[in-house]
């Protein structure tokens, strides 16, 4: 007898990624120092647990990349899903971090 399975892990992961994206945007707005690239080196236990749970649920890493700078598009991928977020603040943070890699 066949049984139904509607990609439960990917749906869950997708929803969590969307939530994580919203949280990241909120951090940029609330912590001015981050926009200029100052790292926050201590994470809260909840932040760490959230990310660990996300990665465990998806069975893989979280990967983000800038797709279209003119639109401020950052793509966040987890599991078999991706969220495209239009967020110049987030892109600016990534730009700042990326400059460290090419210095």
């Amino acid at each position: 007898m066949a049984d139904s399975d509607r990609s439960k892990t990917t749906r869950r992961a997708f929803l969590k990624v969307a939530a994580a994206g919203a949280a990241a945007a909120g951090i940029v707005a609330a912590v001015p120092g981050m926009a200029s690239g100052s790292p926050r080196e201590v994470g809260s236990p909840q932040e760490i647990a959230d990310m660990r749970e996300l990665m465990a649920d998806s069975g893989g890493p979280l990967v983000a990349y800038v797709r279209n700078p003119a639109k401020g598009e950052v793509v966040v991928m987890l599991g078999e899903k991706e969220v495209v977020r239009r967020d110049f603040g987030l892109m600016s943070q990534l730009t700042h971090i990326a400059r460290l890699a090419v210095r």
Partner: protein
Amino acid sequence: MSSHREAPAISKDPVADNTDLYAWVAADAPDHVTILANYIPFEKPEGGPNFFAFGDDVLYEIKIDNNQDAREDIIYQFRFKTIVTNQNTFLYNTGPIGSLTDPNWNVRQLYRLTRIRRGSSPDTIVLGKNLRTPPVNIGPRSTPDYAALADAAIIGLDGDGDGMSDMKVFAGQREDGFNVDLGSIFDLGALRPFQDLHLIGMPAAAGKDGTKGFNVHTIALQIPKSQLTSDGSMPTDPMAPESVIGIWATASRQKATVRNDDEDDPAPENQSAGPWVQVSRLGNPLINEVVIPLSRKDVWNSRRPRRDSVFRKYYTRPELQALLPILYPGVFPNLATNPPRPDLVAILLTGIPAGIIGGFQNFTGPTQADMLRLNMAIPPSAAPSEFGILGGDLAGFPNGRRLADNVAAIELRAIAGVTLPLVDPSYTPDAAAGLLLDGTSNEVASLPEFPYLGHPHQGFEHVHD
């Protein structure tokens, strides 16, 4: 060939490389459609200790259009998972493998088969979990009764949810049922039986099968026809549009792969993230191989069939049509006029409409798309011709494709002009066009029953041409 290593990118990713696609109505299962999708070209049978296997990180799919729009209405998805039972040995097996649960078998693959149906009543059903593949065929000590192992991996499944097994699935290593003289054809288009007529002539000779002695990995399905039609009916009228389905197979990889270099927290393997991205596809044989030019092959592999109108010009005046009169001087005077080829566009991109061949059509609508088209209402042939429809046998290629169909010869002859009079009666094919073949045949007889494709060559002893 027919799609082995046919494009630059996929030639570097063999685990995801579609090699052949077959679909036909088998004589011993006339109410079903049999579909075989082969992957991983040129598997040398002795290739241990890490023998060939499906990719755990590849999504393998067979897609079916059943309502004439070149979009997938039914998708069969295969995902594989490798299990290593003993991490402390380098061996694939530590003794003879006598069954699919034999503890001597160290490296196994299980798979999950999911069916997705779209349309008015969409659903996603896991048809089977933890289904077993057979081992590869190693040799007389390791796999002494290979046929029994392969037979044990033929699994009956319930496709319509009534609790009864009505379809079959098999996934595992098989011998490569395709035959073609690769060594000669890629040596400036030579066909050994006719190479005395080649621009750089040599004495005529028998063909040599470039895939002889090699294996592939096959995904095989045998599905009731009524589960493939758009309305659930059993197709009986060859002229009814709903009797025709379009089929193609794909392989996809996730968008990103991360290789972990964190020595404090090493991941056991590469990890992927993101949606699936198509890296290989196959409908009709030899299209990306010899019709699509080098600069467009990778793009072709990534595209959906319904976007194939952008490649139409390569069908209208195929490069091979222009090359044949040059490579065989004086042999193809009519083809040398380089006529436009609406016949190839019809046969390969839309299917053959009604009115061209009496009592037959496999038209899938005006959308130009590379799909293997099968009119399911055409019964199996009592006297099959290896030349399919060109040989007067409506149950063969390009109405689906059977294992014994000589698709290299059929497509050579078609491109050489044999099919052009179907739509342009004023064109007279050159006398040589209807004789073209590469002079090869497959070295292993097909099995009389599912999955039909012969057992794989063993590593211990095998022969190449």
